[in-house]
């Protein structure tokens, strides 16, 4: 069986699945819209969680939250299921496909065969859509891929039951109930307010304060941890910011695209101006990544280089602080 499902490539997997499933159900929701309404933008430094032997750092909301918030704010209902038994998980998936219902799945990346080898880390919060099955092969629409692809039953089971942090446990989800019309405008305002609150939160590791904290740490790392570890940590920051899924500049460009679209819908010229400003902030994040990568490229960097990029981060924190204060007032 094959469900008539249109694949659109997106920058980030979770927004992409939301947007593609909504489009399939007749609601034209773009990826930036899903991201903005779901308050996806964030900065959070998580020192107690180690990823690839370096402290974790994220530029986006926790996996699953974007869809959850999006659904609540536009008034759709999602059915979610997790499984202990792979066999039940498979049966439930097949049932949905027979009912012509494409579903979203949370999967691990490490055993995702169509991904390039070097992207396959133990990361369990990837999302994709299954839209059909032929014999024992599932038809897959993975939003970050250019075209649709396939996975065998065995390959799919393995990634649905990947282990470790955020283990998917076969997690399957799909929208079940839609209002006649989505209340997009109200949802946008809620989404923006939430993002402003997150970014300006009085928590040392979150938002603007989180950026300042990382800046402070970057100055210390080379002395405290040695150049090798410092560079490894820096590499992790750049990877989190620019790796597949962020759309560039640690999601800042997607967010700017959202503000532009929101500005038109709400007929709010301020948002258009703020979109331009966010684009410039995104450009500065890119500059930061470029300079950071230069440090660990020629491994004998001086202390000065670390201080230099730390100052860039401080500057970014100041700009984002001013930005989100303005954004809060603009809606």
């Amino acid at each position: 069986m094959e469900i008539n499902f249109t694949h659109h490539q997106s920058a980030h997997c979770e927004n992409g699945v939301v947007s593609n499933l909504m489009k399939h159900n007749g609601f034209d929701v773009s990826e930036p819209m899903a991201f903005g309404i779901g308050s996806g933008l964030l900065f959070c430094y998580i020192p107690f969680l180690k990823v690839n032997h370096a402290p974790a750092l994220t530029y986006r909301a926790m996996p699953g939250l974007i869809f959850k918030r999006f659904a609540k704010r536009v008034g759709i209902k999602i059915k979610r299921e997790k499984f202990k038994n792979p066999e039940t998980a498979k049966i439930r998936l097949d049932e949905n496909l027979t009912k012509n219902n494409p579903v979203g799945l949370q999967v691990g990346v490490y055993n995702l065969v169509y991904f390039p080898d070097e992207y396959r880390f133990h990361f369990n919060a990837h999302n994709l859509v299954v839209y059909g099955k032929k014999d024992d092969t599932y038809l897959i629409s993975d939003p970050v891929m250019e075209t649709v692809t396939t996975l065998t039953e065995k390959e799919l089971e393995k990634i649905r039951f990947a282990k470790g942090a955020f283990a998917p446990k076969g997690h399957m989800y799909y929208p079940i109930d839609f209002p006649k019309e989505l209340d997009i405008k109200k949802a946008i305002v809620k989404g923006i307010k939430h993002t402003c609150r997150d970014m300006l939160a009085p928590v040392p590791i979150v938002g603007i304060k989180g950026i300042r904290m990382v800046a402070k740490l970057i100055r210390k790392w080379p002395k405290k941890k040695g150049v090798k570890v410092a560079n490894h940590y820096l590499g992790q920051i750049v990877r989190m910011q620019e790796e597949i899924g962020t759309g560039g500049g640690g999601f800042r460009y997607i967010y700017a695209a959202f503000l532009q679209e929101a500005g038109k819908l709400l007929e709010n010229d301020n948002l258009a101006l703020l979109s331009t400003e966010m684009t410039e902030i995104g450009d500065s994040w890119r500059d930061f990544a470029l300079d950071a990568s230069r440090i660990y490229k020629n491994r004998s960097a001086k202390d000065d280089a670390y201080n230099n990029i730390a100052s860039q981060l401080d500057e970014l924190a100041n700009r984002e602080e001013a930005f989100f204060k303005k954004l809060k007032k603009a809606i």
Partner: protein
Amino acid sequence: MKKSDVPQDNSSLKSGDFKELCYAVNDDGEYTTTNSSGWEPKTIALDNAIQEINERVEIAKNKVINNETSPVEYYMELHKMDISILSSYTSIWKWRIKRHFKPKVFQKLSTRTLQKYADVFEININQLKNINHGD
């Protein structure tokens, strides 16, 4: 970022034909999407991460050869895992895994425990005991 500025660097990695979507502004200031084949700073970051993993694997391998650790640690590194991830795949407690890193303890492991590790690493017990089976 302007659409015309979206980097099209050749990633030195095998992912050459893997093009990801980027958001950028066109000449009229409107946001649009375009594919990017890669960006150098990112490639360097990824290269470094891979290199680091390879180094860790190499170190673990030498430790096994010098009888300082057991093959469990080597295979763990080879599969880009850490102790927590290995623990959740094998359902063996972390402190027990740490003990199994000791060559002496590893020698005495039951077939059942060895099989658990072998299953997760997708090898057989002989391969688990002898890390040079691939050479």
